[in-house]
């Protein structure tokens, strides 16, 4: 069992967390004027990096959403930090 660290609750087992996607994948502004290609990129295209990744996670017991840096090869995870606290 891997331990992830919620910035609000501290270290907790990985089964309490839910992957929420890559950090920095911002919804395009402009509503109907956004092109199909831009929508598709926002909805579907991913960096899916091998190695260091910046990700959004939810701690499903406290329901807080936060940012976690993780290595997708070694699986080593840094302690999570609150959204907005590090850009």
């Amino acid at each position: 069992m891997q331990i992830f660290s919620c910035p609000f609750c501290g270290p907790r087992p990985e089964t309490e967390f839910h992957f929420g996607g890559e950090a920095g994948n911002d919804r395009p502004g402009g509503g109907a004027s956004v092109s199909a290609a831009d929508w598709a990129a926002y909805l579907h295209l991913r960096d899916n990096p091998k190695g260091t990744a910046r990700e959004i996670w939810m701690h499903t017991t406290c329901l807080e959403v936060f940012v976690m840096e993780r290595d997708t090869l070694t699986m080593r995870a840094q302690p999570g930090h609150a959204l907005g606290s590090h850009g």
Partner: protein
Amino acid sequence: MTRHYSALSLLKEGLTGQKGWQPAWDDRPLKPRYDVVIIGGGGQGLATAYYLAKTHGITNVAVIEKGWIGGGNTGRNTTVVRSNYFFPESVRLYDLSLKLYEKLSIELNYNIMLSQRGMVSLAHTPAEMEMSARIVNAMQINGTDAELMDAEAVRKRLPIHHGGPDARYPALGGIWQGRAGTARHDAVAWGYARAASRLGVDIIQQCEVEDFIIEGGRCRGLRTSRGEVRAERIGMAVAGHTSVLAAKAGFRLPVTSYALQACVSEPVKPILDTVVLSPGTGTYASQSDKGEIVIGGALDRVPSYGQRGNLPVLETVIGGLLEMFPAFRQLKLMRQWAGIVDVVPDSSPLLGESPLPGLFLNGGWGTGGFKAIPAGGTLLAHLLATGQHHDISRPFDLDRFTTGRLIDEAAGSGIAH
């Protein structure tokens, strides 16, 4: 010089001290130029090379593999072949694959040990029974074999299954596909490699792609750990690492990589003669020809490139197995492993020309690439030979993510990838 495998050649070699066997495939150096280069020496890449040579007469082909052939997901799956999908596009694709598998041992002169022992997908609730009836109807309309089983049929087919009324997951019935089964996964890679090598394809192992040679906005070749190679067209079948190579080629894909794990028990006497999947427990199992119980389940829910699984998922899978088959409580596990799979939002593969012209994709198979090897190879070979889609691959082009015409098999057939 014995090349063809037959009872006669076995006898001949047996009488002459087994000295005449030739290597199954030749070890050749990488040439500087080919008509087609295929990245990835798994089942998909090797099948692509074979069909390029066999169907299209293109033999100046190299398959380059960073490790050893069949050492990725082709050697890490649970060997199940089936075509129990919901949408017509998917059934056409996977049933083409199953039909090719049915003739593959003879075609390749290599025993892939196909065993069409049938597969049961259980239904545990009245709602799941209704969904099963819907999928069976869709499969029959789409022209593949499927039958709806009732509780009695499940009891007869799976006498050791704990699915009576007192079970946590009672079996009310299920979907039966009799043509589904298992095949020897390594043999599929080796058989295609041998047949392709015989037709003149170069198989280059321990050759890693470092970069793409892009000139005039078109992919012209590759820089590899064994030097530069140029080709008219390049195919890529690198399940699990599709995004990594795409990044080198300068584009992004609708793919997230996850670990999918599996395990096998010690070998025991025959006890389970079909493949069985339980959506309730999230576990599926079959018994290998050697007698091992081969066990699989859902993806680890943490994106990963590490080829090993995490413990919570293994615990869930084993818990599910014991719920289904309490008799397996006595089994000892022998091995546990994981492969990295491309997970795509609609759980359907990516086939077609990539955003970089000249580079063609075969990927995004999620947890189900092994069963699709003959079809994936046929379709990528068609793309590489003609530059155009085959009718069966067209719906799986990357453009579906822009047009919104997704083929959502997670919703359709309830597959987990």
